[in-house]
């Protein structure tokens, strides 16, 4: 039983079982990369001296001739990866979100996305999952940068199985793909048989009062929030939007039609995140009461992950409050 579930309503059965894991998604991604590397011998991996943090070293140990540690030089690393990929080869670039999506963003835009190269970005320390490291290591604008770039696809898996799924999507999708990963281990929810596709999503829990949309680590907060809401007589539908770009508009629309209210919660700036994307989509296609949670034009700070996400308004508690507020408006 998980920490958050213990705080939830224990008398009501939890539809989705949260299993504690020791493996952060950054590690799961690299482990899948090693496995995949045995079958597909045509791709290489570029790292900028944080291989022992992203776990890309696992690949380097197994395939030293396919692993390029370019030193502490994210810009040069990204550009060299573009050169290696120039004739169509798949290259994985591993690193931290803040560096890859900001220091190297121009290279990603003009020299990877524009020529549509097969560069796959393993981006660790997404959002406040790097809470303990402080703001310089918290990629809280990465989704905005990456999803704004033409040609770029954006994935944010929440657990081990979906991370492996995200890796496979990245490898079989032509062109650049960005995968946001977490620093610390949280929970597993998916069974090994689950399948994941580009533009797909997972309805983790059915409900007819409100739709809760999230991705990555906040999926667990949404699940807990749904549990609390049930105790208050509100049945929330919870969607794991692991494919952030493109997102699953069809599932979202069907859910919004059913529930009549949508709340997006994400570990990212509110501005230009998935919430903004979905708000625009709903406004055009099916306007319903809407709210979004995320960093409200502010930076995060160091500290315990659970305390930090609560302070910045993306915890289960904050989701419950926002959902109730939204339903009062309806």
């Amino acid at each position, binding site marked *: 039983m998980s920490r958050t579930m213990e705080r939830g309503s224990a008398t009501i059965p939890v539809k989705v079982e949260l299993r504690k894991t020791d493996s952060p998604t950054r590690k799961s991604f690299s482990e899948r990369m090693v496995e995949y590397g045995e079958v597909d011998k045509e791709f290489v991996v570029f790292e900028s001296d944080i291989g022992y943090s992203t776990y890309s070293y696992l690949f380097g140990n197994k395939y030293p001739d396919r692993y390029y540690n*370019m030193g502490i030089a994210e810009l040069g690393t990204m550009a060299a990866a573009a050169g290696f990929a120039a*004739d169509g080869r798949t290259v994985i670039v591993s690193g931290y979100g803040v560096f890859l999506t900001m220091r190297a963003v121009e290279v990603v835009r003009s*020299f990877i996305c524009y020529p549509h190269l097969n560069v796959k970005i393993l981006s660790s320390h997404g959002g406040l999952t790097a809470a303990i490291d402080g703001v310089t290591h918290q990629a809280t604008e990465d989704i905005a940068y990456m999803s704004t770039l033409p040609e770029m696809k954006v994935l944010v898996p929440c657990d081990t199985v979906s991370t492996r799924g995200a890796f496979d999507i990245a490898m079989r999708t032509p062109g650049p793909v960005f995968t946001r990963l977490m620093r610390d281990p949280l929970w597993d929810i998916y069974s090994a048989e689950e399948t994941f596709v580009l533009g797909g999503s997972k309805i983790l829990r059915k409900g007819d009062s409100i739709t809760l949309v999230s991705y990555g680590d906040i999926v667990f907060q949404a699940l807990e929030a749904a549990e609390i809401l049930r105790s208050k007589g509100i049945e929330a539908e919870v969607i794991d939007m692991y494919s952030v770009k493109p997102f699953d508009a069809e599932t979202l629309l069907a859910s919004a039609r059913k529930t009549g209210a949508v709340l997006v919660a994400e570990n990212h700036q509110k501005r230009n995140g998935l919430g903004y994307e979905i708000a625009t989509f709903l406004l055009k296609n099916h306007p319903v009461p809407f709210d979004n949670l995320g960093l409200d034009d502010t930076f995060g700070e160091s500290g315990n992950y659970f305390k930090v996400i609560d302070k910045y308004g993306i915890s289960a508690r904050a989701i419950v409050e926002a959902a109730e507020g939204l339903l009062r408006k309806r």
Partner: protein
Amino acid sequence: MVQEKITQSSEISKEKIKQLKETAKQVRLHIVKMIHKAQSGHPGGSLSGADIMTALYFDILTVDPRNPRWPDRDRFVLSKGHACPVWYVCLALRGFFPVEELDTLRQFESRLQGHPVSTKTPGVDATTGSLGIGFAQAIGMALEGKWLKKSYKVYALLGDGEMQEGVIWEAAASANKYKLDNLVAIIDNNNLQNDGFTDSIMPIEPLDKKFEAFGWMTKRIDGHNMEQVLSTLREAKAHRGSPFCIIAQTVKGKGVSFMENVRGWHGKPPSDEELAKAIQEIEGGLK
């Protein structure tokens, strides 16, 4: 396989030099004409690199205009992407696309974009235009060549102002780590950048000592002396054991008197009168 030095395969004949000089003249004529036609583009840095580019495309590079993406071709990266007129001219004269297409430079729906785009122009191996980045892409291409155990080389033409970009030195260091002796960098050292003389905007010398310190074989040449340009490029082509950097002293706007070494001709097209004078001077060989 690693050899200290491979004997030069052929002596450079006077006839060869004469041919290349004549071609370089044609290249310069096309450069000023196409930039005039577009009324936009960068003549200064295109003209300073014209002799080097001519030697590359008409002697050094192993490329196939009918098969621009031939996997075994030599790669070329124009890291100083704004000088693409000189590249487009060389590609057209080598048969990668019709020479008439040069008139479409920078125009709506042209394959000849304002800065080089690999997905649009046959023969363009890497999209460039942001200074410093092309050089780092060349590192990646050379790494792939090594990984595949291919014998092609990667050539990159860089500007000297570009040396002010930090990523240049990230790339230079990595070429040393991986002993990229399949990589040749040529610095078009015209000592002028957009805002003024390079040594006053932000000094970058001594380039030879800097690249040597980064583990490169370096050589300074006169970038307008075709004998030197060609013999040094051939030496670099044969060189093994380390990456090779040629620092070519050049004159920005070379061949057109009123453009030579004048700051204002970095990114300005000539007027009708200026074009006529430029053509006359280039054809006359600017005594």
